[in-house]
């Protein structure tokens, strides 16, 4: 029970993560599954000594990602999980490669100063005005008017996004289709940083 509570605490921390760091300084996303440390923590009296010492040698490299003490930086694929047959996986993988957007394009949205992030499905929107209006409603703020020369005028907030190359870009510069195919996450910057962008 202790272990599962510890896990729950971990989860809550993630959900309420404060993001005050500069773009690009974020740690890589940790895998959402608990690195299984059951082999160490388990000390149930009913389990015989011999099977403990042997059993804890769970070093099958196939399941290393789930079984190590330290979380690997990137999520390793575990063999055969989720349990989908290769034939089906291959058929659908081909489809994903064909399509840029697939089924649903959820990206995280953060706002400087807000205690937690939100997620939105970019596929739902057809244009920048729609997206920006939604963001304004979601976070109860005003973003202002976009202009190519000056960025976002008339407010303290500027919507930015991280693209496929890891660069932070101002929302609105590129055509909508290009935007949704390259946008990985959104961040609404506030204050002096935001004003800096519009100069």
């Amino acid at each position, binding site marked *: 029970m202790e272990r599962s509570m510890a896990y729950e605490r971990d989860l809550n921390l993630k959900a309420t993560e404060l993001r005050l760091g500069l773009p690009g300084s974020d740690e890589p996303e940790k895998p959402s599954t608990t690195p299984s440390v059951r082999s160490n923590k388990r000390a149930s009296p009913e389990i015989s000594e011999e099977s403990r010492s042997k059993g804890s040698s*769970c070093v099958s490299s196939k399941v290393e990602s789930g079984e190590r003490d330290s979380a690997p930086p990137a999520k390793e694929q575990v063999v055969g999980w989720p349990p989908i047959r290769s034939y089906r996986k291959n058929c659908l993988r081909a489809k994903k490669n064909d399509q840029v957007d697939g089924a649903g394009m959820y990206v995280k949205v953060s706002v400087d100063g807000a205690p937690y992030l939100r*997620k939105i499905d970019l596929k739902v929107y057809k244009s920048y005005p729609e997206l920006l209006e939604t963001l304004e409603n979601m976070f109860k703020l005003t973003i202002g008017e976009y202009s190519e020369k000056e960025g976002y005028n008339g407010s303290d907030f500027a919507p930015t996004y991280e693209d496929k190359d890891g660069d932070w870009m101002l929302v609105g510069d590129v055509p909508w289709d290009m935007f949704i195919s390259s946008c990985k996450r959104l961040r609404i910057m506030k204050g002096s940083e935001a004003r800096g962008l519009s100069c």
Partner: protein
Amino acid sequence: MSEDDDRSPPSDSIANGSCPTRTCTPGSGSGSGSSSIPEYAAPYPDRVLENVFRKRSLVLNLTSWYRVEAMTRSDLFIGNCYAVSPERATSRFTRVRSVTLKGKPRFADFNLMPPNWGAHFAPWVSATAKAYPWLEKIHLKRMSVTDDDLDLLAESFSGFKELVLVCCDGFGTSGLAAVASKCRQLKVLDLIESEVSDDEVDWIMCFPDTETCLESLIFDCVECLVDFDALERLVARSPSLKKLRLNRFVSIGQLYRLMVRAPQLTHLGTGSFSPSEDVAQGELELDYVSAFAACKSLVCLSGFREIVPDCLPAIYPVCANLTSLNFSYANISAEQLKPIISNCHKLQTFWVLDSICDEGLQAVATTCKELRELRVFPFDPREDIEGPVSEVGLQAISEGCRKLQSILYFCQRMTNAAVIAMSKNCPDLVVFRLCIMGRHRPDHVTGEPMDEGFGAIVMNCKKLTRLAVSGLLTDTAFAYIGKYGKIVRTLSVAFAGDSDMGLKYVLEGCPRLQKLEIRDSPFGDTALLSGLHHYYNMRFLWMSACRLSHQGCQQIAQALPHLVVEVIKHEDVVHMDDYADTLYMYRSLAGRRHDVPQFVSIL
């Protein structure tokens, strides 16, 4: 559609519940040595015979082997091809017209078993070729079949009528060509989820030029081009054809031509359901709606491998009659689904991708009141992504589809509340398979383990025989299964449980358990030994990446001589001490098999 369709006849139950064969000593689970070997007797042979007559098929089981007289049973069903040798089976049962064989365990589908493990069809085809020249039907699942095997089959059985290969591999189009050309009475050639290599032989052209007896031709899994003209001519000269499932190399225009030739079809797999790349063919101008409307007997629709959503309205005329619809390769949205599904009032089986989202599932729940089986597959089967379906969809289905019997549901997040709701709303559930794709994910609203949800399923669904669990689960979940899952026959466990107690609960509590597959769960030797009283009643036990040692497995092997205990070594697994990465054990009259590959040790 029989993807992983576990419709093995309930005659399996002869081996345990209905036949009181065990007289095990209490506490035999923890001991080793001869005192704990269960006495295996068959005190009520008449009851066994009765069951056999009722089920109209032969089941090989240890107890009745020497009691059952040779009867004029025509169907031989062998749930594990290594449970008995082909020679013994064919000499014992002499009047067989149909053989069903199952080979590899299901987890082999997910690359958990190295290739070339076994389950070869070869010894079976040669034994049956000698013993049953009048054989008409062969149904194989997860077997390795070669072209030579298929050739021998085609040569040996002059009246051969039905070949069904599910999840098989090892053969190619040249094997199919042999069957097509030599089996003149062939009615059924069904290739389902099988891997077929492209030998560049046009097997469709190998069917005889005359009228055929074909009733069913299923080749949607065959990943190679077929000569379309030959296919069209074949369909034209197969007046009895009722089931036709095309592969993805058949375009929608070609489909049209075939449908026009075969309006009598009841089952149709539509192939790609998109125009061919050669746009000049004018495929978009064809009157697909009329073609579908002409198929008045169509009840089962599948395919849609590369669907162009604009083409979807063509199927409107048949929706009202459909009892089975497979959209599981079609990446369609809720909006695209709704106009279709809102007409499918008679639908009983529905397979779909999660691209339809919770909203799509709500639409299904609104209309499909007769739904018996639902499968929701993930478009993107990764672990850490936001998923389009959730507890919302499951709840909606439970409220709308009260007659549900079987569900397979892949999702990224789930709640106990929704699972509990389903357990109460759908009392007819026989199969409940929930796959929360993130390992160890708890209830995403409460943060609790998923114990209560699965507990409610085993508690409330009194007809439940098959269960697959997932998400964060403690030993409590297994306590529930052991306490309430009294008729569970198949249980699938992955990344679950806290300790040996979990497995013990199940082995001690579930008397009907036949097939148990476990991966990546912290169950060790003590737990394994607690099942000694039961293993002879099971078809198999699979445990991979758990906490077993060679020594523990050895103890089982010594205690139960009629069990074949295989320890499988994987190349990329580092072995420390005595660790046994993969255990696969099964009862057998045949003893250790003779085709053991190098990476398998039989203890």
